[in-house]
């Protein structure tokens, strides 16, 4: 009973403000004559028509596919290089300033550069995402690997947990909180790069389509595209939180117990 009550109250708090905002938008824009801010009803009406037919396959899918491939590439590359650099002090010292420099480059400037090499095809767009999202993962992995606890490391050596087993049972799990934090940063960079590279030069994709709408003054469609991008960002972040909660359950428990809760 109490639980239901609490759950109900939680639901109320979660939904109250969003409902108020949507309702306000709905009625506030209902009789809108402002060309740039069409009524929410017309936007929503356009939404289904615009996205659920052909464009889902022709634009949304290619965008998301490029995003996921690029992101996965960045994760694999970042973790692999990060493990190597994190384990070797000299190598780390040598490469640190160079890596910090790469991290500091605003990733979207890579787009014009990459398109010099690979044209405006899928490959270039995927590579842009890999190269842009790589750095936070790489640098965080280095940091995490470097900071593996000495006692745990000695324990592993003395029980002969070495080689691949050491990587699997010690290094990667120990670095995982930092790796995941880097992956979270990398995810939002990936989305930015997906959109910008399609806006910059493309023949399909979400970013491309939204800019086309804007240029042809298809305003409700443009708004529906913005909403779709927002939803995409939200859903990906939700999935990421799920992943984070699952993979770092031990870490959150450890932190709680260290804080004495």
């Amino acid at each position, binding site marked *: 009973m109490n639980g239901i009550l609490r759950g109900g109250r939680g639901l109320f*708090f979660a939904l109250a403000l*969003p409902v108020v905002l949507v309702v306000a938008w709905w009625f506030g824009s209902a009789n809108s004559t402002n060309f740039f801010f069409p009524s929410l009803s017309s936007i929503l009406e356009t939404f289904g028509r615009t996205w659920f037919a052909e464009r889902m396959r022709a634009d949304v899918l290619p965008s998301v596919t490029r995003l996921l491939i690029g992101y996965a590439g960045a994760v694999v590359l970042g973790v692999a290089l990060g493990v190597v650099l994190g384990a070797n002090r000299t190598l780390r010292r*040598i490469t640190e300033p160079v890596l910090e*420099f790469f991290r500091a480059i605003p990733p*979207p400037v890579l787009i014009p550069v990459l398109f010099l090499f690979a044209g405006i095809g899928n490959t270039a767009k995927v590579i842009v995402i890999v190269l842009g999202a790589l750095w936070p993962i790489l640098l965080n992995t280095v940091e995490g690997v470097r900071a593996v606890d*000495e006692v745990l490391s*000695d324990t592993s050596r003395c029980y002969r947990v070495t080689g691949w087993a050491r990587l699997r049972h010690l290094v990667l799990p120990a670095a995982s909180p930092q790796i995941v934090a880097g992956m979270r940063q990398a995810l939002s960079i990936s989305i930015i790069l997906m*959109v910008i590279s399609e806006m910059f030069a493309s023949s399909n994709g979400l970013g491309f389509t939204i800019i086309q709408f804007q240029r042809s003054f298809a305003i409700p469609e443009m708004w529906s595209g*913005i909403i779709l991008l*927002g939803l995409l960002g939200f859903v990906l972040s939700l999935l990421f939180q799920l992943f984070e909660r699952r993979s770092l359950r031990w870490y959150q428990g450890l932190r709680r117990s260290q804080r004495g809760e």
Partner: protein
Amino acid sequence: MSIDAPTRRAGTMPARRQSGLPDWSLGLFGLVAFAGVLELLPRTGVISERYFPPFSAMVGALVEAMGTDTFWSATGETLQAWGIGLAIALVAGVGLGLLIGSVPILQRLTASTVEFLRPVPSVALIPLAVLVFGITNIRSTLLLIVYAAFWQVLIQAIYGVQDVDPVARETARSYQLGRWARLRHLVWPTALPYVMTGVRLGAAVALILAVTAGIVGIGQGLGWLIVRAQSGNDVPTIYGIVLFTGLLGVVVNLLARALERRALAWHSSVRADLGG
């Protein structure tokens, strides 16, 4: 015989130093070696110079560009948008963050909305900005920057307020400190390091958006310079400006980190004073 044993936790072994060189010299070596590789790759024909000029050519093009007014006006525009946008995000983020964080009911009411709006990519607003403000108005760039940086600051500010020690909060209440005094002497000092983290993250993301705007045709900042060089097929200049944006990024990061460190040092000294 005297031994100056360093005080250290028993049982910890520092990683053994593999060479006697100081760290910065290794880093410098890395930078020089990297520049050398960039120089050699095109010179030896591994990569075509048409896509990838030698490092010296990139630097040469940058130096040449630095001689023009366009370069400095573009840099000025980018930095101006960055500074104003970050400032707006900061004021709004800290203000709202402190408010939301201090009022539990507000926090519960806004949590889901924040969680929904925060991951919305700010670049989704590009077409809207272009339509509403136009491509020459600095407000277009500001909209993107503020949206991106605001959430970083807001979230950190909320975390910061929540980190206030409940016991200290009760103590302050029992001493009859008013709302304002509590904010000034209790909440703000606790939240400051978090806010500084927000500033660091926000500053980096603001720079990204400030440069990005030009790439998608908004304004005439550094991004625009790159696009212009690209359409003129001036490849060395593209790379030169990319190098420059990287240097700007490094400077922004260093400044933000220095600021954060100072705030943290101040924070811990204040905490020590309070006997915490």
